[in-house]
């Protein structure tokens, strides 16, 4: 199976800074190459207009106060 080329994201040094990754540039390049097909899949999310949809993440301020009998 032919490996897909790395996605044309941005120069690795900039990517390193923006993502905050601790990986060195050589390793980052390898990871970006492995990420290419997944990146392509995730990019499909851009097709969706979901501005009226609340994400499935809800902040619950009462969480630290919850108790249960163990």
């Amino acid at each position: 199976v032919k490996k897909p080329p790395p996605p044309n994201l941005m120069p690795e040094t900039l990517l390193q800074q923006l993502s905050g990754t601790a990986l060195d540039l050589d390793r980052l390049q390898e990871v970006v190459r492995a990420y290419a097909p997944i990146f392509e899949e995730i990019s499909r999310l851009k097709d969706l207009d979901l501005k009226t949809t609340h994400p499935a993440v809800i902040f619950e301020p009462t969480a630290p106060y919850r108790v249960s009998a163990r």
Partner: protein
Amino acid sequence: VSNTELHWASISELRRRLDLGEFSSVELTQHLLARIADHDQQIRSFIHISDDALEQARISDRRRRLTGVVRLLEGIPVALKDNYLTSDMPTTAGTTAPGITFPMEDSACAERLRAAGAILLGKTRTHEFAWGTITPPVANPWDITRIPGGSSGGSGAAVAAGFIPMSMGSDTGGSIRIPASFCGVVGLKPTFGRLSRHGIVPHSWSLDHPGPLTRTVEDAALVMNSLAGYDARDPACQDQPVPDFTRSLRGGVRGLRVGVIDNHFMDRNSPDVQACIEARLCDLQRQGARLTHFTMPILDYGLAAIYAIELASSGAFHDRWIAEGRTAHFQPEVRALVEMGRLVSAVDYLKAEQVRSVMAQEFKKLFDKVDVIVTPTEPLTAWKSGQSSVSINGHEESVLGASWRLTYPFNLTGLPAISVPCGFDREGMPIGLQIAARPFDEQSVLRCATSIERANAPMARPSWLTTTA
């Protein structure tokens, strides 16, 4: 009492026979330990055997004798996947990376199993950090040249091999149901929030589900009776009423409304799997269930959503270890998946969470019309070890892509889902059927699964493991 009967017996049968005094928990535990010693060098399902399993069994026998108190799983040996913390056995989460250790304390599920009287016999192998569906070096008991599935591959193989009647698994994108399907056992992923995840090494906080792998649907219900209930230590655990899960087993499927989603679940399966599932749907119809077909276009975005959520979450969990260079010692594929977490943008992560909301709404609309959804668990049966891709109807697909395609929608939506054995392909490998229902309606899942199980009884066992004690 023949030994052969003993290791294939269900939990409910073992309970009955322990109650009758046919054998003691010590004898049962000794028998299973001997069987593991004889056969697990070929399967490699266990990573650790408890030093005090026999002592736990002695205490259980003494308690039964002196007090007459018989708890739900009194004297029954069980196992846990190696990502559940235990106070008396080490936890590795499948990693050998230096400098990574986990506390010696009981997870909530270990606590509840002990409180129910179970004997914690050992820990089963997991794919490293539950990030994969192959679980090396575990072999599939039906054909040891094939993978058992994963990430709870050790649990699936141990239950299928007759080493243990129940082993706990965890399921982030299908990791209970995939090995259940490939190994021909029952795997239940309850509703997100039904069981406490406290003390399970996290993979992806909003996707991880604990659940049992068993040889019968009734055993899954029995284990649920001992595990379900609120635990404030798990922020996602919900304070919901806990039913007697075994009561739903007697209902039959007459009048049950069964949904079939034609896109995504029924359009890219191997011919053997497709034929088997269609035959089981006909069985359900003959037994009085009413079938309705649907399509759900949002499923087309499910893979993007679970990738974004799972990669970002796992990247956050492992972030410190990445900075310390510890992930360099992970298996190469796991290392890459963990290290790419920071490449997922926050915007894409939140869009993935929006897709999840839409998907939950779409399933809700569907459940206004049906009680359960039936799908194949896997689009194919277990493949040979060492393959990085599989071919389904001439289309090449990565092994990860193929193995979690039909299971991850129920992690994204948190809905209860089970895999129940429903037949074999032409090479004699098991096929699993998946049933999902509304949140906290495990009872409908179990009810439908019982009908499938009864229609296929008695379940065959791997032949090379049935001829020996």
